[in-house]
Structures are given as C-alpha cells and as structure tokens.
C-alpha cells in the first residue's frame, strides 16, 4: 500500500455505520434479485389468489348444489299456479327475496298428502312446503326455514289472491355522488383492503429476511460480517436490501396488474363485480394515501423484519429459528386482527392501543388514513415507528452478539445464581 493510501486509511480507519450497512445491503439486494428465490417471491402471491379463487368457485358450486332454496307447493293445482304467477309478478321488485317455487307432483296424486311426513321421510329436496289455501297458506318446515319464508309466502299468497296491487308505479331515480353514510362505508372498505394488502406483503417479505439470515448462518459467513462491521449495521443492511427487493417486486406486480387491467378490465369487472377505477376514495385523497401506504408498508416490513432478525439472533440452529418464528407469525396475525377490528372504532382506547403498539401501528395508521383527514398524527406515528425499528435492530444485534457468537465450552463452570436453573453449555466448544 502506498504511503498516501496508508495515510488515508489511518485518517479514516473504518467504514461509517451507513457505509457498512450499504455494503451488506448492496450484496444482499443483488444476490436476492438474481436468485431463484426472487422468482418464487414474484409468483408467490399468485398462489393465494389462485387458491382463493378456486376455493370460492368450488364453494359457490357446492353451496348451489347442496343448499336448496326451493319451496314445494302442495296447494290445489289452481292455487299452485296462482302462487307461481304471483311470484313471477313480484320478482322484478323483490328479486332475491323471492323463493323458487316448485309444484310437488306427489301432492297432486296422493289423496292424503301429508307435508310434515313428506319432509320427515326426507323425500324430495325442498327447503319447506307450502300447503293450505291462498287465504290461509301454511309453511311446513324447520323453524329456520319457516322464519325465513313466512313473510315472502304471505306476500306471494296475498298477491295471488289479489289483495295487493298487481302493478306497481315506476320509481324514477336521482343519483347522488355520496352521502355521509356511503362515504364511511366506502372508506371502511378501502381501509380493510389496504390493511389486508399490507399484511400479506409484510408476511411474505419478512419471511424472506428470516430465510436470508438462516442462509447466512448455514454459510457461516456471519462471523466475517460480525468481525468487519458492527452487527446492527449488518442487520440494517439486510433489512434495507429486502425492502429494496420488495419494492422491485411490488413494481413488477404493479406493472403486471396495470397491464392486465388495461387489457381485461371489463372481464375483471364482470367476474368480480369490482371496478378498480372507481374505488372509494380514502379520506386523505389518493395521492397522499398511496404515499402513506408505501411508507407504512416500509415501516410494517422493517418492524416485522427486525423482529424476525432478532429471532434469528436468539436461535442457534435453523430448526430453532423455524420454531421460534411461529409464535411471532401468530402474534402478527392477531395484531392484524386487532388493527382490522379497530377500523370501526375510531377514538376508542383499543384504536389508540393499536396505534401505539409498534407492530400494529402501521396497519392502524393506514386504516386511519383511509378514514380520517387529520395528518399530524401520521408524522408522530412514523417517528414512533422509526424509533421502534431502531430499538429492535439494536436489541437484535446485541442479542446476536451475546447468544450466537458463543464459543469455548471447556472452561470452568460458574456457580449458578440461586435463582437460575442449572443448565449445561450446549454450544460446541470452538
């Protein structure tokens, strides 16, 4: 090394904290981006969507086939016909509230048709059976079915008997853009959708951080990193590398989604009944809401990632890492439920708690951005979340140095403190 270089090294004998984190972040970012794991990460969200779609479709099919909403008609032939005519008359006005009516063939041929016995013998596939006359109809069925269909059957029978008008005046329509009730309802939908998206993304990504740390333990490279730079810089570098990877992933998903929407928006609207172009606007407006979504996503990810890194720090083996991450995943799920539950309870103690508790804070605050216009609270929450990230990183790296870099088992056993259990050293010596 030349004298000038030597002088430079002595003048600046170490990397700064952020330079050190940058070296780790750059390596991890490139390594993950060009790995097969990233490909799986990209296609990862397709699986829940696919499985969800299939499950929904199958569920609907099963439900359609298994759950009968047909009511059997066991009145006189004339009454049956009148009932079905009345049902058809009312259907445009009452739609889904009207049952499907079917004449029971057996009732016409059996002279002493007993509706109760018919159902108890489990004949046919009727939810309930309507007997009696138009002036005195009777619904035979289970209590639930009777409660459900008594009203509509009464209306149909009355219509069939001419007790109500057979024609209805045309109702003219005047549409307003929104109302207080509609706004609140729409914003709740936006908040729920944003929270769900945030939750899925953070879980997916934080798991990647954990895998990355486990990989480094397996590769035994972690000691080289720990010897060269402060451990918290290693943690920070890893977290931000994965955050960068996640932004690339989100950008790819976003572009693909936008492309798919451009090509097949009509089909999407037809299938899902949702027009993404007309999603209900959040309270803070779309531009700020999107910006806050990105920031809260980053915070949620950094918090969970730091927690997972801490778990990695506490564990000595890959198996321990996997075991210990399970309760945290469950806790994160509960935190998500908490934040989701408080959407409809603004100003409650529970909402305040979910805002203050670092792990639920990003979720609760994102929901708040959808529901309320106040901005200063976001600045305060972000500062608090950033502080929590720093504390978690610091705590995790300290634990890592204390627990993982153990060595030397041949020394004398210390006298255990009176309150501590006697345990033997489990780490291999050197």
């Amino acid at each position, binding site marked *: *090394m030349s004298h000038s270089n030597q002088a430079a*090294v002595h003048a*600046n*004998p*170490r*990397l700064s904290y952020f*330079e*050190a984190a940058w*070296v*780790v972040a750059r*390596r991890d970012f490139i*390594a993950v981006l060009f*790995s097969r794991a990233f490909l799986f990460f990209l296609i990862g969200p397709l699986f829940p969507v696919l499985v969800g779609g299939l499950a929904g479709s199958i569920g609907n099919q099963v439900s359609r086939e298994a759950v009968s909403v047909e009511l059997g008609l066991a009145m006189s032939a004339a009454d049956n016909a009148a009932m079905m005519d009345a049902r058809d008359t009312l259907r445009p006005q009452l739609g889904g509230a009207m049952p499907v009516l079917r004449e029971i063939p057996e009732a016409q041929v059996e002279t002493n048709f007993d509706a109760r016995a018919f159902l108890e013998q489990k004949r046919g596939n009727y939810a309930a059976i309507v007997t009696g006359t138009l002036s005195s109809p009777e619904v035979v069925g289970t209590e639930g079915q009777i409660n459900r269909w008594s009203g509509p059957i009464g209306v149909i029978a009355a219509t069939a008997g001419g007790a109500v008008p057979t024609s209805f005046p045309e109702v003219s329509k005047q549409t307003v853009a929104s109302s207080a009730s509609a706004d609140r309802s729409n914003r709740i939908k936006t908040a729920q959708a944003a929270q769900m998206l945030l939750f899925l993304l953070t879980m997916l990504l934080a798991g990647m951080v954990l895998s990355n740390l486990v990989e480094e333990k397996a*590769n*035994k*490279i*972690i*000691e*080289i*990193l*720990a*010897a*060269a*730079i*402060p451990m918290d810089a290693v943690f920070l570098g890893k977290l931000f590398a994965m955050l960068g990877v996640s932004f690339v992933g989100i950008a790819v998903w976003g572009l693909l989604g936008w492309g798919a929407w451009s090509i097949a928006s009509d089909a999407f609207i037809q299938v899902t009944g949702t027009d993404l172009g007309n999603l209900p606007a959040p309270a803070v407006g779309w531009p700020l809401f999107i910006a806050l979504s990105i920031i809260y996503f980053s915070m949620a990810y950094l918090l969970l990632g730091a927690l997972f890194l801490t778990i990695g720090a506490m564990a000595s083996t890959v198996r321990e890492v996997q075991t210990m991450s399970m309760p945290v995943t469950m806790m994160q799920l509960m935190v998500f439920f908490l934040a989701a539950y408080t959407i409809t309870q603004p100003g409650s103690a529970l909402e305040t708690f979910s805002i203050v508790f670092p792990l639920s804070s990003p979720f609760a605050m994102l929901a708040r951005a959808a529901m309320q216009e106040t901005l200063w609270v976001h600045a305060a929450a972000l500062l608090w979340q950033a502080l929590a990230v720093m504390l978690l990183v610091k705590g995790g790296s300290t634990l890592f*140095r*204390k627990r993982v*870099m*153990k*060595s*030397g*088992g*041949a*020394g*004398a*056993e*210390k*006298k*255990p403190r009176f309150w*501590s259990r*006697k*345990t*033997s*050293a489990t*780490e291999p*010596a*050197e």
Partner: protein
Amino acid sequence: MAVSDQTFLGNDAASDIRPLAIEARGLVKSFDNTLAVSGVDLAVPEGAIYGVLGPNGAGKTTTLRMLLGIIDPDEGVRRVFGYDQPHEIGRLIGYLPEERGLYPAMKSIEAIAFMGALRGLPLDEGRKRGKELLERHDLGHAAERQIRQLSKGMAQTVQLLGTLVHEPRLVVLDEPFSGLDAINQGKLERMIRALADDGVTVIFSTHVIHHAERLCEGVAIIAGGKVPYAGSVETARDRIPAQVRLETRAREGGWTAALPDDARREGDFFYFSLPDTGVEPLLRTLIEGEAGILSLSIERAGLHDAFVHIAGEAAARQLEADNAGDGQ
C-alpha cells in the same frame, strides 16, 4: 494470575521498543454458566507473528473474538492499535474465522472484493487486487468460478485472500492450518512469514505445536480458559533447563559424584539437566577424573516440552488427541 512473563518478549521486553498491536488485560468471558475465558493477558508488538496455542475448547476462539470486538469481554480491557473498540479500525484488520464461510453462489473474485468492501476497499479496487492475488496463488483460472464449484482447499485459499485483500496491518487467523494438506500448510506458513516481513502483525490460534514453534516469536499458551503463559517462544523453552547428553569411555570413577543429582544412565549415555553453572566446571572434573569423554551435547527443550511443563500433562494429552483427530 500464574503468568510470570506477561509481556510479549518476556525477559527481552525491555529491549523490545516496538509499539503494541494488541494489548489485553484480564479478559473474562462466560456463556450461561460456563466460564469460557478467565483472565487472559496478551501483549503483541507490531510486526510479530504470535500464536495462541491450546487444545480445542480451551478458549482460543473466544479470546480472538474478544480481541476483534465480535463479542465484548465481561471483564478486562483490550486494545488493538490503541483502540478499545476494534470496529473503529476495521480497515486495519483482516480476520479468517475457524468456521470458513463464503456465499456459495458468489464468484471467487467477487467474494474477495466483497470481503475487501467490508473493510472499506472500493469494489473495483477489490476486484483488481483479487485478480492479482488469485493469479499469484495459481488460482487465476478460478476467478470467475462460483465458490460452490471450487474444491475445499481452493475455497479456503479464496477466503484467506479475501482476508488480506485490503492489506491489513493486523491479520488474525483462527486455526488457519486446520483442514489444509501438507503442501497448502507449507504455502500458508510462507504466506504468514511474508506478511510479517512486510511489517504486518499476524496472530493465529492453533492446536498444532510445530506450526507455532516454526513461525512464532511469541505464544500464549491457553488451557481451560486460562493463560498460564504468554511471552516469547524462547522464554517458554527456557522454562525447562536444557538437557545434557554425555558419553564416556569409563563407566565408573570418582568423577560420577560430580554429575548433577538428576543424572540417569541409559545405555552408554548419561542424561541430566544443564547445571546453572554451565558445563565448563563439570568438563574440568571429567577430564581430571579421566572419564574419557566421547561426546557431549546440550539440547534445548522444545515448545512441546514447554507446553507440557506449563499447561500440564492433561492439556498436552488433549492437544495430542486433537492433532491425532486432525491427522496432523
């Protein structure tokens, strides 16, 4: 503290005016209920080759990790080039851990550059130097190959080059000879000597005495987490008096009374410790008593004898078992 020779060169310390690269006093570290290291004292001058010698599990790695700041001691102080926190001078240090680790998917040249970058070397410069180093060590052809495609020996060399690429002033090697064949061990010894010739301080841990004996100016003997000796190799050897081997024509005579008390006869030879007064007075008595001296040789104790003497037979047996386990 059982150390009588606390400074690096022991009795020669007064004449050694080199500044200290490493200084440690009373380092203590425990994990859970196990005391891994208890009261380690070291002083390594700049430019020295220093060995930390002891059996597996003695606390060598823990000591090195404390010196490097990977873990902090529970008690005691450590200073590297005068800094309490070694991370403050990360660019001056190179470290090869015992558990070798590299990213399997990384190319050799990138692995070296990355390790340099961790120590503050720009990536481009790291690649340039890495290429030169690989070529100098006959691994130029492996520069663009992934680590997973290299043999174990080649991967170890790549990691060692990564340890040196930023031209550190202090190189810390944890069991560097472990897993190397005889040829590569020889290469590594030459590399360590070359580093010291360039003024680099090298400290390495080992459980193989002959590496320490051949390379080191100073050693710390560590056993059971304690350091019963830290000082120059010469002073350690001097802990045991030199042995004299005497062959005489006459088997009996009055001159035998002049032999030291510990003298014993084995075949044609007498063996005894070198007297404090030297051999000259004894020689005069043997000549006057017409013993007929056929040969006389003085053999200094080796580091192995010194280790047995200082650390005890149990530690020595463990050391030999470790060596047998390694095939060394």
